[in-house]
């Protein structure tokens, strides 16, 4: 390897990879959430470089191609304009692919297109079509045309792949809001980098700091853990603040499997 291996990855590095894979579960939005955050981080770096170039256009208005296969649409839904980051809202082109072959075709066509900011893919499982050759093909296309690919692998094993960086994403408890500690805070992820060409593997707790990707300082992370050490106690404090009928519900709450303790308390 010609380049010196950088010691540790951090957000905002200039030489972002052009082909990354993020492994995640379909039970939460962490995979695509992290992919979007990383993609925006990389776009911000290029935007900063463009700002130095006097000939470049002021604002990046290029489209983002978002490819999903049918099962990913079924399990995790479609992008929703009102919940996307404001700078991406008007720039999404969504593609729904019926088969893995179509999915790979769409990804490759997107990577070949010079008018796209980046390509985000969501593919479920380990389809036969997405073997090492196919992923190498995607890497080469991305590097030839300079369009970044963020491929989210849902419910997949980490098989052979030529992705330059491979992440494993889990949701992490969000940092409490200053004015409303009970509400879910800024999105936060536990990101494990388990294979990278230019960086040492490692694990980070990343969060969305006002639209920018940031690493949670260990102090906050540990403090948060302390704070969260007894979620049940928290639940109880809040429950006590509420009204009659709490005791019944709490009784049901103590029994680990969810079963109808009281007809009034359990629904469905």
């Amino acid at each position, binding site marked *: 390897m010609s380049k010196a291996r950088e010691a540790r990855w951090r957000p905002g590095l200039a030489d972002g990879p052009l082909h990354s894979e993020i492994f995640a579960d379909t*039970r*939460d*939005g*962490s995979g695509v959430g992290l992919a*979007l*955050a990383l993609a925006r981080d990389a776009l911000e770096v290029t935007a900063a470089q463009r700002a130095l170039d006097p000939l470049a256009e002021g604002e990046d208005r290029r489209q983002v*191609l978002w490819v999903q296969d049918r099962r990913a649409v079924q399990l*995790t*839904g*479609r*992008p*929703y*304009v*009102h*919940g*996307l980051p404001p700078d991406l*809202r008007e720039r*999404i*082109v*969504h*593609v*729904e*692919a*019926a088969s893995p072959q*179509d999915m790979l*075709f769409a990804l490759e*066509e*997107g990577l*070949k*297109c*010079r*008018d796209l900011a980046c390509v985000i893919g969501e593919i479920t499982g380990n389809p036969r079509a997405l073997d090492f050759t196919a992923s190498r093909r995607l890497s080469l296309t991305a590097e030839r*045309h300079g369009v970044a690919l963020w491929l989210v692998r849902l419910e997949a094993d980490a098989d052979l792949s030529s992705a330059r960086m491979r992440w494993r994403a889990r*949701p*992490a*408890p*969000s940092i409490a809001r200053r004015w409303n500690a*009970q*509400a*879910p*805070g800024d*999105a*936060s992820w*536990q990101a494990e980098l388990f294979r990278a060409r230019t960086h040492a593997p490692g694990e980070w707790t990343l969060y969305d700091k006002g639209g920018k990707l940031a690493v949670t300082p260990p102090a906050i992370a540990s403090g948060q853990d302390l704070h969260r050490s007894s*979620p049940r106690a928290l*639940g109880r404090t*809040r429950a006590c603040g*509420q*009204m*009659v*009928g*709490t005791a019944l*519900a*709490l009784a049901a*709450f103590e029994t680990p*499997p*969810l079963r109808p303790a009281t007809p009034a308390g*359990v*629904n*469905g």
Partner: protein
Amino acid sequence: MEQLSRRILAIWCARLSIDRWKMSLGSDQAAPKGEDALPTVLITETAHGPRIEAANDAGLDVGARTGMMLADARVLCPQIRTAPADPAGDLAFLERLAVWARRWGPWSALDPPDGLLVDITAVSHLFGGEARLLADVEAAFAARELVVRTAIAPTAGAAWALAHYGTRSRAILEPTPRGRDMMRVLADLPVAALRLDEDVLTVLKRLGLKRLSDLTDIASGSVDRREAAARDSLQRRFRNRKSPAANPLIRLDQLLGRVPEPLLPVVPIEMPLVQRRLLEPLRHRALLDRVLADLAADMTRALEARGEGARRLELGMWRVDGEVITRQLELAAATREADHITRLFADRLDDVDAGFGIETVRLRASWAEPLAAQQGDVEAAAERHGTSLVACIDRLSVRLGEGAVRRPVPYASHLPERAQSWMPPLANRGGSALAVEPCERPFKLLDRAERIAVLYASPDGFPQRFRWRGGVHDVVRVEGPERIAPEWWRERSNVRLRDYYRIEDERGGRYWIYRHGISGDGRGGVPEWFLQGLCA
């Protein structure tokens, strides 16, 4: 008084269907001894049996009439012959006639089912006066073996009335001051000359209004009290009829030129079309690709000459055995790049069955849009490789299908699943956004909200634990409720409201769930819970 200065020529092909049928027989058949001498009717199939649309002279003589059932006509004349009517063909023929009729004026309009309107304002002197113009029209139509009645008048309504119901087959209404003078000529025409619907004619007949003069007397008000009362009742009766054909008062005003009557002119559009007739029928794909590339290059030149780009292309392949294979392509933006067209069609040609060979290949741009010529940037093109966004989207939609490539746009609704609609990727932004930005939303929305089992402290309180897709989630943090009421102007009255909560479970997964209704709202039993979106 203002002079009505426009001149409109109305041409009524009184027997269009029969004339076309005679044409289809050929010239020798149309001779008096031929098929036309036998009673013949043109029929359409209806739910109650065949009905007569038109009858030739011999047919009329034996008593067949338009609108009669064929069975009734057979009673009058058992040996009557039938031919199928062709309304679509008549209309297409009329369209061609309208384009042809522009020889007498700058624009012409269709007057379906069998008439034409030509604007001949300030044109007649080219033909030596209006009388000679009408003679010229009649001679030209007679040469095409079409029976016509013609009229020239200051308004389209008056010209139509004279052509259809005038006493002579050629009528000219001189330009007059606005008002009664024109009416003096038209007063004796029946009310049907107003181009009204059947039911309106029935109403007028029942009211005893038979001539135009009856209607004008009432409509333009005399001093008599009884007349004024009649006018009021007539106006009340037709007050809510906005369509001109359903309202005799509007039609009367149009006839007299008091209300403008816009007409839709016919504009002929030629599609760019290129084709290759092949000496030797094609049976192999490689040769077909070559022909296609040639055609695309020809098409590029044809489009370039017109300053247009293709939006829809149709490729027709005629086989030796007469079979036609067509492939259609729709493009995201106007283009005239030969390579791009060739590549897109190449994906569509895999399943072409050449049979004994293809002898003619034709490429037609049935939808083209203006596309200005652009200077090619030589240096930049060499440096910036890759495809453009338009080309990329074309390739994706050709392979994945029309609806697979879309863009989400905001839509003016408070219901989350309605607040987003999908548009073609390069369409102008048609969606209207809400003026007020809603509260925080999930970044992914499930196609259908999934039902979850929820454990809560009190029926209207926060959720505490829920089961979704077989997994149990403890709710650690919660924000809400955000109450979204149903859209009562659109939905039924018993649709329940929704209370939305943003929640986070013990692992950190963030979701958007809602309770459908509140207990005791009288719109159903115990409220159900649904999970609708995933947050980042």
